[in-house]
């Protein structure tokens, strides 16, 4: 980056001499977004954001001043403002912090990429318009959209105790959508959900041949759904494909395991958790088949990184082992407050928001059941693909999720397509009914840039990878008024 963050740190230190520690966290975001609708141009947007958060520690209390003014004078003013806030809050904090929660890490990380040179906008639109053509599987398709977003996040962290972190995360997302109508029936089908296909990498992720094939399937399935019966309403075995497991893991495992939720920070907004601090190490979260990892080291998964945004080194950790909760999702501040082990996941949406506990990559480890064997073992079930609706209570217990596309399973065989499939349940009951976990051949990674949390609010990118999974005795139902 063009500014010398060490020089800016010196300015901040000179302006806030009473602070016992000062850190700078700079974040530059650049992104481009291209969209076609019904085979024609719809939008082309680019954006650049850049700024720095100055953090000070005073009398056990952190506070921040955030500014887009990257001059030494601008950073000095932010440091002064942060010191005022820290002094005002000193003695009123939730915890008396010290420098141990701001490690002197020295980390350099960049997303591995095969193709670094950008494809020009006319090339991107050539793909998008072709994709709309592939999505238009028949006259009953009333809308097609295709989208590509590509961007990078550049981070720098420097502190008075010697932290030196530089990271560049590169990502690309693609979205394909078809809406079909026959009479009063309208159905929407996408490739893995809105923005679900967002991953780290370079332009190699714009695999036009593969995506166009996906578009053809999506369009055909949208029309197929128009003639499908609605999902039955009863209890049966539920098989979830990885593009729905992504949501299931996110809402009913990831959020409840965030330590800041467990200790109440989020109660006023996103909510708390049914998990208690005392559960960590003993709570039977799911069946013995359930192994959940926090893994920021998976190449290509959306939330891979070398260190979190307070400079803690990122390493893979198992959170749920053979169904037992062994570790939760909390950064160094939450670990200090709750007195339990955590992971390096204190992250911020940008330079203008302070880091909080986030999910990063949260994955379900593969099992040993092949897809065919799983289906063959189910007498009465339904397989669901691709999230379209999600709702869960503030303690992450009672959930209801909906999918775009369902297939009945009868006597060990996939039989008829059903539309508007939904299911509901209670998180730990649901996970204890996990009865089969697919093998590595069924494993797939997805990501979403849309996880909202925090006060002030923050939206964050997270990754989720999972095999196909089966759950026994689940309440499923269809649509209608």
């Amino acid at each position, binding site marked *: 980056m063009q500014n010398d963050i060490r020089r800016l740190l010196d300015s901040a230190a000179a302006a806030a001499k009473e602070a016992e520690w000062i850190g700078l966290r700079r974040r530059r975001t650049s992104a481009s977004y291209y969209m076609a609708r019904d085979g*024609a*141009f719809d*939008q*082309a*947007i*680019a*954006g*650049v954001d850049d*700024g720095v958060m100055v953090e000070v520690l005073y009398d056990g209390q952190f*506070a*921040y*001043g*955030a*500014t*887009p003014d990257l*001059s030494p004078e*601008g950073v000095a003013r*932010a440091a002064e*403002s*942060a010191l*005022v*806030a820290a002094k*005002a*809050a000193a003695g*009123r*904090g*939730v915890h008396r912090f010290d420098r141990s929660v701001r490690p002197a890490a020295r980390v350099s990380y960049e997303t591995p990429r095969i193709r670094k040179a950008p494809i020009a*906008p*006319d090339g991107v639109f050539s793909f998008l*318009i072709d994709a709309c053509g592939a999505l238009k599987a028949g006259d009953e398709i009333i*809308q097609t959209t295709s989208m590509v977003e590509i961007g990078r996040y550049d981070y720098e962290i420097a502190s008075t105790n010697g932290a030196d972190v530089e990271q560049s995360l590169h990502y690309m997302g693609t979205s394909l959508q078809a*809406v079909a109508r026959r009479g*009063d029936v*309208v159905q*929407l089908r996408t490739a893995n959900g809105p923005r679900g296909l967002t991953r780290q990498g370079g332009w190699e992720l714009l695999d036009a041949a593969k995506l166009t094939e996906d578009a053809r399937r999506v369009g055909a399935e949208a029309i197929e759904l128009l003639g499908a019966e609605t999902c039955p309403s009863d209890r049966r075995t539920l098989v979830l494909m990885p593009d729905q497991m992504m949501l299931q893991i996110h809402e009913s495992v990831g959020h409840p395991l965030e330590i800041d939720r467990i200790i109440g920070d989020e*109660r*006023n*907004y996103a909510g708390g958790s049914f998990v208690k601090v005392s559960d960590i190490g003993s709570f039977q979260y799911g069946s013995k088949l359930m192994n959940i990892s926090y893994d920021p080291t998976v190449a290509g998964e959306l939330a891979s990184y070398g260190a979190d945004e307070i400079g803690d080194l990122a390493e893979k950790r198992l959170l749920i082992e053979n169904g037992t909760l062994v570790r939760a999702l909390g950064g160094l501040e939450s670990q200090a407050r709750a007195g339990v082990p955590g992971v390096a996941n204190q992250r911020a*949406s940008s330079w203008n*928001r*302070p880091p909080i506990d986030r999910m990063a990559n949260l994955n379900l480890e593969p099992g040993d059941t092949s897809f065919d064997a799983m289906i063959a073992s189910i007498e009465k079930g339904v397989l669901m693909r691709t999230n379209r*609706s*999600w*709702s*869960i*209570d*503030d*303690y992450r217990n*009672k959930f*209801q999720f*909906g999918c775009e596309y369902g297939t009945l399973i009868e006597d060990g065989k996939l039989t008829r397509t059903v539309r*508007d499939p*939904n299911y*509901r349940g209670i998180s730990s009951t649901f996970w204890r009914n996990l009865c089969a976990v697919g093998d590595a051949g069924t494993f797939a990674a997805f990501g979403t840039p849309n996880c*909202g949390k925090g*006060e*002030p609010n923050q*939206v964050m990118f997270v990754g989720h990878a999972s095999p196909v999974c089966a759950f026994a005795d689940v309440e499923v139902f269809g*649509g209608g*008024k």
Partner: protein
Amino acid sequence: MTKDFKKRFDAVAARALGELLPGERGAISYSAELSAFMRFNGGKVRQSGSVEQADLSIKLWKGAKTYSFMLALSGDEAEDDERVAEAVGKARALMPLLPDDPYQAVPEAAGSSDARYSGSLLPEAEIPARVLGPAAGLDFTGVYSQGLVCRGAANSAGARHWFQTETFLVDYSAWLPNGRAVKSSYAGREWSDAEYAKRIAATKRSLENLGVEQIALEPGKYRAFITADALAEVVTFFSWNGFGERGIRQGESAYIALREGRESMSPKFGFSQDFSLGVEPAFNDDGELAPERLEIVSGGRIANTLVCSRTAKQYGVPANGAGEDEGVRSISMDAGDLAEADALKAIGTGVYVSNFHYLNWSDVQAARVTGMTRFACLWVEDGRIVGPIKDMRWDESLYNMLGAKLEAVTKERHLLVASETYERRQVGGSLLPGILVDGLSFTL
């Protein structure tokens, strides 16, 4: 960073639009803020600090090409001048590589407006003491925010619009050891310790209803009074798969059946987009003004949809100043004739719903929504409060909740200001009554 954001807006608007060559046209939208935040948990400070930010979005049109870009502004006049000029140059080089825009809609509106609301806010060094002090003894959790928020828009047809307001918001909940809580807020432009103390005292009184054992309801249909606070969560849906003309035409709206006359809502239900609420500007990002009041649903039927200029071009219908997302802003829902004081009596036996949580569609085409009850929801028998309920999931079509099952709407309405702070502090709000629903479907 300067507090005179209007001057900075004028400067970057002049630079951006002044750089345009013959045949090029542009629109800019601008947002800026100086904010102080304090997040608290258990009556103690979790995180606090200040944020200053300003950003600019520029839309360019040349021939049949359309391109948009966003820039963070540093606040330094010379630096920002260079950033804007460089971005216009890059856009100019890129635009020939884009396909033609079939529905290009270049704004022709040339009006101007300037609305400024000043406030009397807390000195930043006093925020922890004056916000947390009166709540001493409570398990008090939430966020305080305050400061200046600005929005501006201009275009090459000559439009110039400015809106700025200084506001504060304490968005909080107070908790009992049994896990039940009362949610409330105190918002405005003029901070008053006395008014805030009254709000906290009311919260303490409300907590008294929650100390008894929680009542677990069986799934089923219940009479329910839904407060304005709870209804605010439902209103969010009016802009998501909602009343935009494009969404209805292209199959994504939940109200296609309403538009086509296959469904209707109650004659008691109606709402408008009403900028006389004074909580957000009527101009959109392209510098186009919406009418001060636009009926969306009247007597249970669609009166108007939200139409942006691009949709207008595509479908040959008149635009009405909507933003490109065609979301409803400043919602004002029609009042009814039920006195709030009679709400418990009107319920008889059923549920008093203080808050909803995490709504989403169960079936968009059936306008069917699922969500949770949250915070201080109460079981009522024979018009008297019995105690708090355990949170319940509900699943109901809006064609029922706001249709055949809508029994009454309150006379009183409450202005609920936007509390969202994703990327920036939002402006806006809704004026909402409470409603009485007979047979709300609780499912889990």
